[in-house]
């Protein structure tokens, strides 16, 4: 079981970053974004486009050649692209819906349609095949009591640093406080001079950038697939719900727990020969937790009156 811990931590950090992003968006806008996974995939696909050598012709209908940029630069650009994409979604889709007083459930269904639409755009116009970043293979090494490649260790460390940064930003900056104010009451914050439209726009951008980063992580550790976001989306939901939807700290921890659970459950005795079902264990745990503690581990019970 212990040998899976390294894998668990890696999956955990991916889910954790993506869960924080989802939770942040939900906290401020009350949107359960089913298209979250597609932004994750965008991060990976954009990185692939920026970084693959220019003679690489599997992508994009063989018509566009990749840019062949430096890998680190490609990752940063990809995250920025995701941020811009999230901002665009807010401006052309979700803001008009909000102004039109469209209810949350209708918006939820819209995000599902959006998710299916974008995902198959990737399939048709980006890549139908499993791809890898242009990075050389590395051998696993042992760190403390888990083993992983040096590159994956770097991913893990960057992930943890990003989480700490997010935590600090949310707690101490004016912007972070404003986000929490909008979450508590949109009306109140518009009265008190906080421009909630801007806050929501910034939330969309930062949530999408985080999702893009999670996609870069996911593709670095594993590979790039057109449906990679959808495959991991349910685990992200599980992480978010486990920690308490709308609480960023909870989502961080919840995501980590889910990632570790998924990988470690492979080693459970009854799971022998059933590795396909490892996600089922995590999802089952999520459902059970929801049954007994709907507000998650760290969420506050909402006051009814």
């Amino acid at each position, binding site marked *: 079981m212990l040998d899976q811990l390294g894998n668990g931590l890696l999956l955990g950090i991916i889910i954790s970053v993506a869960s924080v992003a989802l939770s942040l968006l939900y906290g401020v806008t009350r949107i359960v974004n089913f298209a979250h996974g597609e932004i994750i995939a965008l991060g990976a696909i954009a990185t692939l486009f920026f970084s693959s050598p220019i003679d690489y012709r599997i992508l994009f209908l063989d018509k566009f050649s990749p840019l062949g940029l430096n890998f680190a630069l490609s990752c940063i650009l990809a995250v920025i692209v995701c941020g811009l994409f999230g901002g665009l979604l807010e401006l052309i889709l979700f803001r008009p819906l909000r102004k039109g007083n469209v209810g949350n459930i209708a918006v939820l269904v819209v995000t599902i349609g959006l998710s299916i639409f974008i995902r198959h755009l990737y399939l048709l116009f980006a890549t139908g095949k499993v791809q890898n970043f242009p990075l050389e293979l590395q051998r696993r090494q042992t760190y403390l009591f888990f083993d992983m490649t040096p590159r994956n260790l770097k991913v893990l460390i960057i992930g943890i640093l990003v989480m700490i940064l997010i935590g600090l930003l949310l707690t101490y900056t004016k912007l972070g406080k404003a986000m929490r104010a909008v979450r508590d009451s949109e009306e109140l914050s518009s009265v008190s001079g906080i421009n909630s439209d801007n806050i929501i726009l910034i939330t969309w951008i930062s949530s999408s950038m985080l999702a893009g980063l999670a996609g870069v992580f996911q593709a670095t550790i594993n590979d790039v697939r057109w449906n990679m976001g959808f495959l991991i989306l349910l685990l992200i939901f599980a992480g978010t719900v486990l920690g308490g939807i709308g609480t960023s700290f909870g989502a961080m921890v919840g995501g980590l727990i889910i990632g570790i659970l998924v990988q470690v459950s492979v080693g459970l005795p009854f799971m022998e020969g059933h590795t396909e079902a490892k996600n089922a264990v995590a999802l*089952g745990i999520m459902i059970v937790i929801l049954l007994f503690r709907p507000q998650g581990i760290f969420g506050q019970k909402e006051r009814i009156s």
Partner: protein
Amino acid sequence: MNSLLISKRFIFTVVITSLSIYLVFLLNPEGALRILINLLTFAGIYGLSAIGLNVHFGWTGLLNFGHASFMGMGAYVTLLLMPHAAGREGEVTTTGLPIIIAVFVGIAAAALFGLLLGLPAIRLRGDYLAIVTIAAAEIFRLLVRDLESITGGVYGIISYTENLQKFRPEFINSLSLSYEFAPSQAWVGIIAWVSIILTLFLLKRLNSSPWGRALRAVREDEDAVRAMGKNAVWLKLQSFMLGAGIAGLSGVLLAFNYGSLETTVFVPLLTFYVWAIMILGGVGSLTGPIFGSIIFWVIISETDRLAYIFFENANGQQLAGFRFLLVGLLIMLLMIFRPSGLLGKKEELLLDVK
């Protein structure tokens, strides 16, 4: 005034549906009837499923995104109870229940699964329920895939169609010879549409009954339902069971239509197909899903032509991708611009549900 308005929409819907069927004949100078029968069979099966989903969402306001698993539960239980072959080696089971009993057990199993899945719904708000149902459907799919000794796993189930086809009336065979369509599919299609008629008859009765009224009240405000001394939880569970049972039947029919059952059938995308059909037909409308389903399947089956415009030599993956692209777009655009669909009542729109 009100009823006049609805009947106008109804006429409009019938005209649109007829036009879309006409389109099939227009675009396919050859073999139109075969294509139409294929399309109507799928439309019947998916329409039936959408009718079940409508009980959940349209009547009771339950956000169910695990519909594919109810269909799957019905299909797997029914098939496994009858003579079939399954698994890597195609292990043959020659004994089993008569089809009519197996189907009823399958429907009951789907309803029970609905009850089980409905239990979390007792305490959860709408968006949480969406997450739980989609997660449960995924668990179902993974288990079916993994429990190879029971379900045949990725190798699926085969050799079960005879259980149904041996009852196929002779006239279908003779008609199929002169009009060139697949008789086995036509037989499944006929059963699907008869099931729709029977289900609608049942639901029409329920919709105008005190029970249907109580479900609508639950949809509107659960707290107020409780305050009136009604057990909202039990009403929701009943709704879950009824809709899941209907989905179970449609799952059985889908399995018979495919001829072999693979784990790739009951996936989340199937649920989203059914959602698209329900929204297109009109959330809360009794007959809406039927028309929605026919139009939906005309769109789906004729989009391949569109795909060929973009991709000269489109492969299977690209064709399927193009269909789903349109499904996603359809769901989005309908929800934004015409959330009441073809036949949904504007006054009962679930738009402002928070």
